[in-house]
């Protein structure tokens, strides 16, 4: 098991290195610099600014100096938020995004699994069609549409929940989590339906039924584990997607998360912030993919034994 994790982590190093390199040069190639603004500054001012952030050095020197800092875990100063380091900004934004992502994932798992299992138990009946149609809409409903809709209904017309914020007013975490989680709930519903259908057709389910077990026990004790494996395998990519895709929701609900920092950084050409966030997210994506693979393997005793060697 540890060997397997070790190999995967080793494999991740070149991936992340390439990501850093490509991103580094990509952001530099994009037109407009961090200090361009609507009221352009004089050439002298710009030169002074660039000198302050070492942007006056040759690009390759900047690159290696960045890599050197990175090796020490230093992501550099933010260009946009003067006086703040990228590490600090990520430390401020990430917990929020992670929490949002976690709740969204819980929403997605809760709704998705229930709908998927319900559909799988009675395939090709309304109990199947209705949640699956909803799932289809859920997958394709963009969050820039779903978020405002939920806000209008629950925040404004019904006046049940706050329309924005994060941790400021009780209940303000509900709508963002729902908005972000719904698309993934839909995917999970489809995955768990397919997974459960597959498992329910297995011989060992027949064995369980031949033992005289009632339906709910057959589902809970015998089908769930196998049926959920595809869902678990999807969790890694899903969580990565949630992290990367949370900026729309963060913007709609005024949430001070990493996604918003990231997009602002991209618009501001905050080079160090873009790079820092990209590196951070790609490490996270690698880790979560690994975690979900391990979890999926752990759920399958046979694979568990294989990796255990």
């Amino acid at each position, binding site marked *: 098991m540890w060997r397997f994790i070790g190999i995967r982590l080793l494999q991740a190093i070149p991936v992340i290195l390439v990501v850093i390199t490509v991103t580094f040069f990509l*952001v530099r190639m*994009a037109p407009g610099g961090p200090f361009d603004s609507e009221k352009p500054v004089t050439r002298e001012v710009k030169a002074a600014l660039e000198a302050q952030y070492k942007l006056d050095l040759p690009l390759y020197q900047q690159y290696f100096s960045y890599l050197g800092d990175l090796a020490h875990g230093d992501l550099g100063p933010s260009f946009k938020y003067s006086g703040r380091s990228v590490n600090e900004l990520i430390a401020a934004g990430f917990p929020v995004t992670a929490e949002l992502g976690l709740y969204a994932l819980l929403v997605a798992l809760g709704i998705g699994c229930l709908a998927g299992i319900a559909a799988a138990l009675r395939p090709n009946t309304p109990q199947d069609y209705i949640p699956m149609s909803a799932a*289809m809409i859920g997958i*394709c409903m963009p969050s820039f549409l779903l978020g405002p809709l939920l806000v209008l209904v629950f925040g404004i017309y019904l006046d049940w929940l706050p329309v924005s914020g994060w941790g400021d007013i009780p209940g303000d975490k509900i709508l963002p989590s729902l908005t972000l989680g719904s698309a993934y709930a839909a995917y999970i519903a489809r995955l768990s339906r397919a997974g459960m259908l597959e498992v329910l057709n297995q011989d060992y389910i027949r064995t369980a039924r031949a033992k005289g077990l009632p339906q709910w026990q057959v589902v809970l004790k015998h089908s769930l584990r196998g049926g959920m494996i595809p869902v678990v395998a999807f969790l890694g990519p899903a969580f990565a997607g949630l992290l990367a895709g949370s900026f729309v929701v963060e913007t709609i609900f005024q949430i001070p998360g990493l996604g918003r920092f990231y997009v602002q950084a991209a618009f501001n050409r905050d080079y160090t912030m873009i790079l820092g966030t990209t590196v951070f997210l790609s490490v996270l994506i690698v880790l979560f993919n690994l975690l979900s693979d391990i979890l999926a393997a752990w759920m399958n005793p046979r694979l568990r034994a294989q990796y255990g060697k």
Partner: protein
Amino acid sequence: MTSQQTIVDISQAEQGTSLWHDAWLRLRRNRLAVLGLVVLVLFTAIALLTPWIAPYSYQAQNLELGASPPSAAHWLGTDIFGRDLLTQIMYGGRISLAVGFVATSVALLIGVTWGAIAGYVGGRTDAVMMRLVDILYALPFMIFIVLLSVVFGRNMLLLFLAIGAVEWLTMARIMRGQVQSLRQQEFVEAAISLGLSPATLIRRHLVPNALGPIIVYTTLTIPNVMLLEAFLSFLGLGIQPPQTSWGLLISYGAETMEEYPWLLIFPGLALAITLFSLNFLGDGLRDALDVRGAKD
């Protein structure tokens, strides 16, 4: 099965591969799938004929009229420029359908090929190919897009490519998983022992058998692509006003959903109907191509 010998018309037997032909025959029996197909064909036909059948010019503004709810003159109402919404949706459909189908085809082509090769060859090749996919997943998409739009300027072809370049990643992963499991099957071994080249083997034996999940994923990709197009257009890579698309109409509509709900509802409906049609057709196609399912 009867053992009675029947004379078979040889010319009929010569008609090459018949998987698609048979799938078509089976598809025709699936009422929902046919409905989906009819709707899609209808939408495509409308899109193609729009310049001749649109009730209004899609540019003509009537600023004084502004946004008006559905009426006899404007069946679906007008937008804030007083432009006929039905016309806008019809023209938007041209872009959205084109983007949806072409970009998805690009993604399909790259993703299926990439995934099939990685899954079939395996080993180091697979590792390198999939790491490349990982890298592309991790790159900051927005910067990438902005850069593309600047370096290459703005054109539709680029839009298709950009979207295809993003969407093929997941497609490749699915395909790879499918191929990996298919590769274990004996019929693949049989094909190898016949002396088939890897390319032929992938094309003839692996791809057709992996189509099910790919088709389902494709039907989900098309609407996503249509919405992604709106995002790219918003960033300046995609189409430019007064051209429009369903994704753009929906995102404009979402901004004013309280004041002018029809500006959201009707483009949303157009997309939703397309989405359901695609889904019915996709499920139908999957079943039709799954020759085993037809009888069991």
